[in-house]
């Protein structure tokens, strides 16, 4: 039997990422996740969505798939943007950010810290971020 799946299609409009977090909250409750786990998923989703929006054209959409598994929630954030080279993304450090011009660039690090696993597949046609959050059994 196919796993339950929820799909969202978000236009590239500021704050649409909040729709994704609200959806994650409902799914988290359905799955019996703790409030902290749900909040961590929501924060990771916000970061994945704002990265996707930044890489996309205003006419693109961002697609989010929530796949409910027995022991985990799998979330895919799919954009149609220009892609990025993960090897060129530096691990941010607060000391460098305070001293440097560019204060931003925390999204991928936050995602890595907030979910149990994350994978990035990026080409010139778009990027898919796959995040997995395990249930506390």
């Amino acid at each position, binding site marked *: 039997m196919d796993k339950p799946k929820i799909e969202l299609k978000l236009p590239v409009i*500021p*704050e649409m*990422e*909040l729709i994704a*977090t609200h959806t994650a909250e409902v799914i988290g409750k359905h799955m019996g996740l703790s*409030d*902290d786990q749900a*909040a*961590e998923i*929501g*924060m990771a989703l*916000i*970061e994945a969505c*704002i990265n996707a929006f930044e890489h996309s054209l205003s006419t693109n959409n961002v697609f989010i798939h929530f796949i409910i598994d027995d022991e985990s929630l799998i979330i895919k954030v799919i954009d149609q943007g220009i892609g990025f080279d993960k090897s060129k993304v530096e691990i*941010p*450090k*607060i*000391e460098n*950010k*305070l001293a440097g011009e560019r*204060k*931003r660039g*925390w*999204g991928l*690090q*936050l995602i890595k*810290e*907030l979910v149990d696993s994350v994978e990035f597949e990026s080409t010139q046609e778009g990027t898919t971020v796959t995040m997995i959050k395990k249930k506390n059994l």
Partner: protein
Amino acid sequence: MSSFNVETKEVNNIVVITTDGYLNNFGGEQIAAVCTQKMSEGKNKFLLNMGNTKVVNSIGVSILIEIIEKLQQVDGKLGYCNLAPIVDKTFKIMGISKYSSIFENEEAGINTL
């Protein structure tokens, strides 16, 4: 679009900024504008009461890093109180808690800053 509001008061020479709403780039810029204005008036201690800010993003928090940098130049201090657990965790992951202070509540922040 969600709204973000700030209310400002001064207690014991500390500027207390109470936030309400999603701290993204727009929210961060509102906080920065208040801090810049108050710093021009000679204030250098700021406490953000974020009890009504349950959601943040890294762009909004990056603007707080700009504020910390400016406060370092005037021997100032920035603190936060009433943080939601996920906001507290985000601040710790980003490391800003090393250069600013997290307090349980407003009273503790005012007494310590």
